[in-house]
């Protein structure tokens, strides 16, 4: 029975080639757009997780503090809420760090007469309290301490980026929903058109004793096949785009701070599955309407 419906569905698609192609392309495009948004968010999420783990608060000290001042400061800092540990970083060590970070371009540093960097405390936060609000509060508290000239935490712009990212995520979700509805509509329309062009055939099938289920099953199969094909094509296109962009990223930025990754096989399967669900839904709505009419 299943084989008959499948064969019928494929025959229907072949005889309505243009319509099928339009439907499959719509699916491919919708899936491409939605999945590229997902890919973007997955990778952005990775980047921001990296940033979040690396939240490091630096408190730069005023000139001329002695060892006693520094140890009182350390005690006071460590008593602040959310602070796990405060480590003194003398300016010589800071310069050394900078030197290793800059790698081959250290010649600029070699020409310096004296070390321009201030002494500092590097403050590590308790993991659980690493939210941006907490970091901000801590920074204000640190700034008020005597002997602290300036506080720097991570990069302040991260926060702004995260806000933008959240906005993107919202837009992405809304767009996904819109494409979802468009896809339902398009499949529904395809099925409706085919059904109406086959009115006579459907009527004949009814007259020779076919059940509604027998008559309509091929339409469901057709929608599922079109959705699946569209999904696979959309994801294939996404993968090609990804490969193209990925090769650029790794050569241009040459950094290890971020390893781009593609959507997991399970996610890909889920996307195709969702697409098929949409196909089924669109078909179902049209069929229900047709049967009633």
């Amino acid at each position, binding site marked *: 029975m299943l084989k008959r419906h499948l064969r019928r569905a494929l025959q229907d698609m072949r005889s309505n080639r243009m319509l099928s192609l339009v439907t499959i392309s719509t699916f491919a495009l919708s899936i491409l757009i939605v999945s590229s948004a997902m890919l973007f968010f997955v990778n952005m999420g990775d980047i921001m997780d990296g940033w979040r783990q690396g939240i490091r608060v630096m408190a730069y000290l005023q000139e001329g503090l002695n060892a006693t001042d520094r140890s009182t400061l350390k005690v006071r800092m460590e008593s602040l809420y959310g602070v796990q540990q405060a480590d003194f970083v003398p300016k010589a060590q800071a310069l050394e760090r900078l030197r290793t970070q800059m790698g081959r371009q250290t010649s600029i540093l070699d020409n310096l007469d004296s070390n321009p960097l201030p002494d500092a405390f590097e403050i590590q936060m308790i993991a659980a309290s690493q939210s941006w609000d907490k970091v901000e509060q801590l920074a204000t508290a640190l700034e008020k301490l005597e002997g602290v000239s300036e506080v720097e935490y991570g990069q302040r712009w991260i926060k702004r980026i995260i806000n933008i990212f959240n906005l993107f995520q919202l837009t992405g979700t809304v767009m996904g929903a819109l494409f979802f509805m468009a896809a339902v509509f398009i499949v529904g329309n395809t099925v409706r058109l085919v059904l109406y062009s086959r009115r006579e055939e459907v009527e004949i099938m009814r*007259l020779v004793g076919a059940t509604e289920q027998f008559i309509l099953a091929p339409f469901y199969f057709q929608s599922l096949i079109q959705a699946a094909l569209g999904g696979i094509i959309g994801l294939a296109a996404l993968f090609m785009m990804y490969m193209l962009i990925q090769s650029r990223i790794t050569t241009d930025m040459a950094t290890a701070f971020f390893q781009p990754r593609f959507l997991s096989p399970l996610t890909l399967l889920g996307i195709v599955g969702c697409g098929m669900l949409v196909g089924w839904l669109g078909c179902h709505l049209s069929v229900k309407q047709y049967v009633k009419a």
Partner: protein
Amino acid sequence: MTAEADHAALIRLFHVHRHFHATRALTDITLDFYRNEFLFVTGPSGAGKTTLLKLLYRGEVASQGQILVDGMNLARIPRKKIHLLRRKFGIIFQDYKLIPTRTVYENVALVLEAAGRKSDYIRKKVQSVLRIVGMDKRQDTLPPNLSGGEQQRVAVARAVVGDPTIILADEPTGSLDAESAGLIIKLLKTFHTRGATVIVATHDRELIRSIPGRIIYLQEGRLTSAPTV
């Protein structure tokens, strides 16, 4: 009418009316059809022959009255069970009603596929029926590429392939030449002897003369006892 005859009635119409707005296609028809009868429904054009046949398989719904087919009350069949009624019938339509985009074989096989038969059975059965109507050599042809007589033979094949209890034929020889008509008559006889109840709507006197059977006269939607014209 005896109780025995009552028992044998396969189809019963009881004060059946069918009108389309002002047109009275059928008026007060009370009629029994018996198992394995060969029946002719005849009368002038517009008398309501086609409408009468349509009522039997619920191609039309009676405006008034009761119709029983093989124990089913047609007024009470839910939409979801109509296919059970239709499977009792093999219908040869006036306009054949073959699906133009499907081959001869597919058109005939459709009946058995819809009934959920196994592929092996379908293949054998369809081929044997196509052989009986002499269309086995044309099984891969599309209906529009067939002559009227050939299409009618395919229609007959489709009507009988499901071994129906009742065969309905609406003007089965209407537009055919004598030879094709003769073949159709022969086929209808064959399936009648095999046990089917055959109901033929026609005004082809040649056809009526060629097969012994009960004749029902319709005129302006009413049963009349005497032959008209």
